[in-house]
């Protein structure tokens, strides 16, 4: 297969776009497409300071790399969750440190959950039986990302979610007809409260294999192993199912996600009478919450 631009051997074939490119032209295409997506959805402006949440995985490190190359004023945040299985958190952090040390001008900060709050996420999960580890972990990360974005005066927090992530969530939400979530899933989530961070997903138009290809082509050393707690997770099953569909029918994942966004917008789906979320502020940390008194995060730690 030949590169459409130069006719040299192709490195990446994007069947969904009927586009094959060599490493050099794929890199060029990937970076400029990210910029177009940021602009198209008004995710953030060139003069904005942006926090990029990094996990040490391919998507977030690739996003950090692309935003730096595009000249955005970015700082990364690594949240050390204290996942000890196969030294996952330490290995992930090492990938972030390595990326930052490679002369890209990449600055980052670390929030260590155990040092800051007294317990690691697995320790907290053991105490709070009945709460699934992944949902608890997500809650902890969202809270910390929101806090760091607000306290650091960042205009937005960017995450490395790709189209496969978004399609898997959409699939899960459709299976359960969770109309509240279906109403809100989007490439950019606006800030609806002065202390609620704007969230942007600049890679939400890329297939996961394309972000992996970008990371490999740039020589980014990312954590290849899955989080030990995510094995057998339904998200992975949904991604596998969607990939089987994609193999049979090129562009199926893209169509599923983009048609959803387009149809929801054009036909006003899931926009019926719904009470706007009335956000107050947590009595302890001041972060926005729909709950009276303490937010879910502070309740988790038994704060008062």
């Amino acid at each position: 297969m030949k590169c459409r631009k130069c006719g040299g051997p192709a490195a990446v074939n994007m069947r969904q776009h009927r586009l094959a490119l060599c490493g050099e032209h794929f890199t060029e295409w990937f970076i400029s497409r990210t910029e177009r997506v940021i602009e198209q959805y008004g995710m953030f402006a060139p003069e904005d300071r942006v926090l990029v949440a990094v996990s040490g995985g391919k998507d977030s490190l690739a996003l950090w790399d692309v935003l730096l190359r595009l000249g955005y004023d970015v700082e990364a945040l690594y949240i050390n969750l204290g996942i000890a299985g196969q030294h996952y958190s330490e290995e992930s952090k090492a990938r972030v440190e390595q990326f930052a040390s490679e002369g890209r001008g990449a600055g980052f900060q670390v929030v260590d959950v155990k040092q800051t709050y007294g317990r690691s996420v697995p320790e907290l999960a053991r105490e709070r039986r009945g709460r699934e580890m992944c949902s608890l972990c997500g809650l902890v990360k969202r809270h910390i990302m929101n806090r760091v974005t607000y306290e650091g005066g960042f205009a937005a927090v960017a995450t490395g979610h790709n189209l496969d992530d978004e399609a898997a969530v959409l699939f899960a939400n459709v299976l359960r007809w969770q109309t509240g979530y279906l109403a809100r899933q989007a490439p950019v989530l606006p800030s609806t409260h002065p202390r609620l961070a704007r969230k942007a997903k600049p890679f939400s138009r890329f297939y996961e294999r394309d972000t992996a290809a970008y990371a490999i082509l740039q020589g980014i050393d990312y954590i290849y192993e899955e989080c030990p707690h995510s094995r057998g997770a339904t998200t992975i099953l949904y991604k596998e199912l969607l990939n089987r569909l994609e193999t049979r029918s090129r562009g199926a994942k893209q169509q599923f996600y983009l048609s959803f966004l387009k149809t929801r917008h054009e036909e006003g789906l899931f926009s019926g009478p719904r009470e706007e979320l009335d956000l107050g502020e947590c009595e302890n940390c001041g972060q926005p919450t729909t709950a009276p008194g303490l937010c879910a995060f502070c309740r988790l730690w038994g704060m008062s």
Partner: protein
Amino acid sequence: MIKVVYRGKAWELKAGMTARAAIKKVGLDPESVLVVRDGELVTDDTILKDGDEVRLIAVISGGAENCFHRKRYPER
């Protein structure tokens, strides 16, 4: 013969097939892996020649980013 390596496992297959055929032969979904030969990414229509060794890289991430999806909207 060609050698296919994936997550610490290795298979020996006949030369002359495409990378896509090799991926299917070892029971994987072509959409879920990338193919690296001699340290270079190649497309899956590449014909694998005698002596080639290819590494298949899984692209599905079940890493820390996906925990966000368990609860789509802030649980506050």
